[in-house]
């Protein structure tokens, strides 16, 4: 066994770190937090210039051919710095699906622009009545000659306001079982009938509700088979399997350690001397390491060609719940000062702890709630029966 990353991976880490020191300023961080938009044109361009917009992709497709382990190092550094990667992430996810199941025309039209950072693709999965149960989607796409007419409403379409296309899950058949009547489309967001309504969230992130009223989309923008949308979704979501929040816990730890070292109690004693503080830090150190191991294991399995079953959900579940618990703990340990918002200049450690309290909540919800992940682990990993 070897729990170290290879030298080549650590070299990538150092490169990313140097890149971030240059391009990830405190001003950019503050702009991202103030606008709630985890996407930045200049930062994206810098990634493109560096060849890092999709580093895991093969060189012939415009990537750098980094392997899963190198991507671990790259991902950890980007997360640790809270770099504005959300728009790039969804764009790449959809581009990968297009490469896998799209038409040649779609590949030619979309992929190069995505890799050049010229377009943003957003996700249109959730609906008011279909959250955890995505297959319950009722947004309709009805065929009309060479076009489809789309009507419905999608929730949580983050970055729609700066997006070029929405990767849309729509119902094309109401006569069959719910999983079997869905089709995926790439809907240009400048079409008439698309209406975007801003939604602001507890963590400060901006997302959107997108309304589709008689939006016409050419059949050329259909991705995958008609009524084969659930399979196309599965391709998309498989790439999410290595999700985990280890590096975000690391961000919390770094902030908490700097607070503990720099601040003192009412008697002028360093908070680092306080047993309660030390215990909270120790627990964070432990949860970070466990999260890291669970997450890295998934990357290693991918590299070793092993089939990931419950390991992906374990990584996501453990790290998101741990992040939430440790952020809550740390707020209580820090005391009243932890209430100061990120935007208060006197907030300890630039307000990262307060931000993390709010940010952490979403991590146990989006991309599948903790309950959905526990179901997956119980059923796929442990072989327990489906829950009623």
């Amino acid at each position, binding site marked *: 066994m070897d729990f170290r990353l290879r030298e080549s991976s650590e070299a990538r880490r150092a490169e990313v770190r140097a890149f971030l020191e240059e391009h990830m300023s405190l001003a950019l961080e503050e702009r991202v937090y103030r606008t709630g938009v985890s996407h930045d044109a200049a930062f994206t361009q810098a990634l493109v210039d560096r060849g890092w917009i999709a580093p895991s992709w093969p060189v012939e497709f415009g990537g750098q051919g980094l392997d899963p382990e190198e991507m671990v190092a790259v991902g950890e550094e980007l997360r640790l710095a809270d770099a504005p990667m959300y728009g790039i992430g969804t764009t790449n996810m959809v581009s990968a699906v297009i490469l896998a199941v799209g038409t040649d025309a779609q590949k030619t039209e979309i992929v190069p622009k995505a890799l050049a950072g010229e377009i943003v693709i957003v996700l249109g999965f959730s609906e008011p009545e279909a959250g955890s*149960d995505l297959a319950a989607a009722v947004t309709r796409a009805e065929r009309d000659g060479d076009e489809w007419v789309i009507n419905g409403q999608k929730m949580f379409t983050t970055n729609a306001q700066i997006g070029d296309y929405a990767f849309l899950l729509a119902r094309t058949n109401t006569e069959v079982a719910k999983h079997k009547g869905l089709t995926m489309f790439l809907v240009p967001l400048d079409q008439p009938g698309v209406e975007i309504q801003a939604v602001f969230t*507890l963590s400060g992130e901006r997302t959107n509700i997108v309304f589709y009223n008689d939006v016409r989309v050419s059949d050329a923008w259909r991705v995958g088979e008609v009524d084969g949308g659930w399979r196309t979704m599965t391709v998309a979501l498989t790439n999410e399997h290595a999700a985990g929040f280890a590096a975000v816990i690391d961000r919390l730890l770094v902030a908490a350690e700097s607070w503990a070292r720099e601040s003192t109690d009412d008697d002028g004693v360093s908070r680092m001397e306080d047993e*309660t503080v030390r215990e909270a830090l120790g627990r964070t150190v432990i949860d970070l390491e466990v999260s890291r191991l669970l997450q890295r294991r998934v990357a290693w399995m991918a590299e070793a060609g092993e089939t990931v079953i419950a390991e992906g959900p374990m990584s996501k579940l453990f790290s998101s719940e741990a992040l939430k618990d440790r952020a809550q703990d740390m707020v209580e340990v820090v005391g*009243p000062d932890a209430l100061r918002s990120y935007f208060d200049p*006197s907030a300890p450690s630039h307000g990262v702890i307060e931000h993390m309290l*709010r940010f952490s909540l979403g991590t146990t919800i989006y991309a599948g*709630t903790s309950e959905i992940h*526990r179901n997956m682990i119980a059923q796929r990993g442990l072989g327990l029966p489906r829950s009623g």
Partner: protein
Amino acid sequence: MEFRPSDEQLQLVSTFAALYGKESTPERVRAAEPLGFDQQLWSQLLDMGALSMAVDEEHGGWGATALDLALVAEQHGRALGSAPLIESQVACRLLARAGGPVATGLLEAVLAGERMVTLSPRPPKAGWALLVPAGAVATDMMIRHGDTLVVVPIGDDRVIPENVGSLPLADVPAGEPVLADADVILSGSAPEAIDLALDDWLVLTAGALAGMAERAVEIGVAYANEREAFGQKIGAFQGVGHPLADMATASAGATLLAREAAWAVAEEPGRSAQLAAMAFAFAAETARNATDVALHIHGGYGFMLEYDIQLYYRRSRAWTNVLMSPAKAVRRVADKRYGPRKAS
């Protein structure tokens, strides 16, 4: 044993519930953000006697019991009242206990609505009273200066930090020269007076947090009874129903304990300081956990500012943390029960 409040108390509760129902709707709570102060609500509370009830007849009040105050605090918590009700009641009770011309004059002005006095629960640090509850809206602040309790006017040089709970907190200048020149409320017994005030503060905040927790559970239950997934109401999933059952249980316990602690102020004074810390610790953890569960079961909706549950989530943490963490309150229970540690 009598677990039902008296008819008068039930009347009091329903009067305040009606006031909050009108003057502290979720829309009004949002409108008062980020400062966390609703002048109209505050005026109505004053008109209703919410401060004068906190002190005896001899101090110009109408001498409600601590239990009466706690029952009102429950309603305040349920409705997330954007007003420094508890801070002001605590200050009034401290002033009434202190007596003397400065305190008496100040108390009169407060009850007349001319001034708003708050107490810094912490001594100053590097010349500042930090995160003073109600500091952003009060006219005066009481604070410890050595063993003396002084009162200083709060000026425009206070700094109002944005905070997670949209509480009207302020960092207030409290340098040595300011404190040395300040009016004296008590000389020599400030630590004891502040500790007693803290007992009041803990017990009333416990009531407010218990009310907040009960309301958060109701919001969660309503959502679980309405939202469907996988062909059934989500409340039918044990992964949703069981945490709600636990939180309903804890909320019931928090409410009972807060009421007992408030009752004990008059009826069992020997145990009331211990009970105040117990009630606060339990209500704080319950409000923290209940708002978390209720928010989480909303899925992505809980995360939207448009839904009310986030208002509860944020305030449960702020109303707690601005005083003390639950763990500190648990250690305070031990201090009150066993006496302070010899080492400390």
